[in-house]
């Protein structure tokens, strides 16, 4: 459904010395996402996740490469593609001069929905996210979790087939995070394709069917969270040295226990996506 090939974004910036320098924020990224899939872009801060989403949603022009939705390149039918996608941005970007209901209505109008359709859908969605009572309130009056839920509801007004979510649970408490995960799962169950970026390993592991790990703009690997862990070794022995925390991966618990017995103090546990991430990117940032 979504096909990305050789996607590259180069920013040209003027340095303090007045010289122009080019920096690749995204470098030759390729992947495909099937309909109804929850696909995660996992990477440390500055890996190029947001730039990738901005190019996929036509907020930023790509330098090179190709993006296709259902076989159509974005250059060929930008308007039709915009009509089929929904975007949940990383930052809260409501129009603060409008009420919650007016923000929702503006979105419906921008997607050419008629009045009846709009009103029905806004009521439906506000009920779905349990915020019916906020319709005449200013977005300023809502809590962080409420605003995040409202961002998701707003993106769903025009019934998009594909939903892009940029760090949908950033800075939220665990309770609200789990509520948003449930919302995402429900949407995917209804056939909506979800592409989300995150730097929370747990989020990628629990939510995503497949994960692409990116680092410094480049694709490191794509697989399911379970396969990633299997490739690495299902068990991890973790121990502390003067250089810091050390890890070693094993296919069986017996092998792991055998190795652990040679150490003074260690801990055996099941491998997780965080281990894979550190192994592949060599970075702990954002985790």
């Amino acid at each position, binding site marked *: 459904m979504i096909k990305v090939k050789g996607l590259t974004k180069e920013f040209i910036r003027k340095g303090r010395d007045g010289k122009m320098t080019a920096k690749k924020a995204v470098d030759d990224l390729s992947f495909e996402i099937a309909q109804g899939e929850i696909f995660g872009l996992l990477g440390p801060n500055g890996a190029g996740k947001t730039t990738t989403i901005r190019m996929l*949603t*036509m*907020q*930023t*022009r790509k330098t090179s490469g190709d993006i296709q939705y259902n076989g159509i390149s974005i250059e060929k039918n*930008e*308007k*039709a593609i*915009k*009509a089929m*996608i929904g*975007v949940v*941005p990383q*930052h809260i*970007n*409501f*129009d*603060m*001069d*409008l009420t919650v209901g*007016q923000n929702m209505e*503006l*979105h419906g*109008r*921008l*997607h*050419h929905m008629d009045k009846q359709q709009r009103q029905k859908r806004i009521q439906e969605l506000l009920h779905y996210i349990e915020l019916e009572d906020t319709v005449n309130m200013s977005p300023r009056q809502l809590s962080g979790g409420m605003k995040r839920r409202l961002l998701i509801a707003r993106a769903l007004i025009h019934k998009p087939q594909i939903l892009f979510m940029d760090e949908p649970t950033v800075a939220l408490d665990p309770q609200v995070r789990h509520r948003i995960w449930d919302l995402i799962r429900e949407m995917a169950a209804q056939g909506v394709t979800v592409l989300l970026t995150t730097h929370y390993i747990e989020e990628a592991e629990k939510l995503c069917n497949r994960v692409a790990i990116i680092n410094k703009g480049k694709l490191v690997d794509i697989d399911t969270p379970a396969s990633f862990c299997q490739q690495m070794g299902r068990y991890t022995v973790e121990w502390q040295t003067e250089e810091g925390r050390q890890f070693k991966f094993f296919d069986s618990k017996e092998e792991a226990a055998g190795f652990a017995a040679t150490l003074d103090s260690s801990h055996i546990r099941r491998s997780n996506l965080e281990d894979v991430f550190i192994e592949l990117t060599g970075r702990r940032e954002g985790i």
Partner: protein
Amino acid sequence: MLWQDIWTVFWRDWVVLRRRLKKFIFSRMVAPLLYMVAFGWGLGRSIQVTGGSYLDFLVPGILALNSMNISFNSVTPVHSERIYHKSLEEYIIAPVIPEAFVIGKVLAAVLRGLISSAIILFLAGLFGAQLQLSALFLLVLVLNCIIFSEIGFFAAMTISTYEEMGQVNTYILLPMSFLCGTFFSVHTLPDLVRYAIQMLPLTHTSYLLRGIALSQPVALTSVIVLILYALLFFGMARWAYLRLTK
């Protein structure tokens, strides 16, 4: 679709204006009221201009500079929508025609400019000004609002800080407010300065509004100049909006 998109963009600004309409009207009365008291009653009683009262001469100038300021400043909140609130992204990701966004914002600014002009005309009537109004007078006012809202849009889309936005007011609008035939005729200025000032759009607006209001003959070339300015700045505003996704 173009009209539907224009209406959506306009609708958003209309919702905001409707909620603040009383505040908007009262705040727009202060500056023209002061101009008319100071220059119309105070200073104006001792001055005769081209055989008429200074108040009659002054009101078209105040209309020109006020509609310029109001229409420019009506669009500049787009700057914070772009930089700080990032609410402009809602329009960029939607299947909205870029031209519709520019036109919708400009039309909302024209509406504010015209409401403000109507307030001035009402106050001028109370102060005893006698002006001839016509369809051409309205057209010139609308063109003036269009031009300066487009300049405001361009500035809001290209300037990166609040401070620099303020500098546009200080270095461009403020000098034009005083020099473009608003308070006195540009014919009294030295030739070189006069030629430069006569190229500016506000000079043409002041000249046209005053000529029409005082039933004097006016050169329609000034109307054409205003139309050309409106087209030029529309192109620049559109370019600045499209540049956001580069």
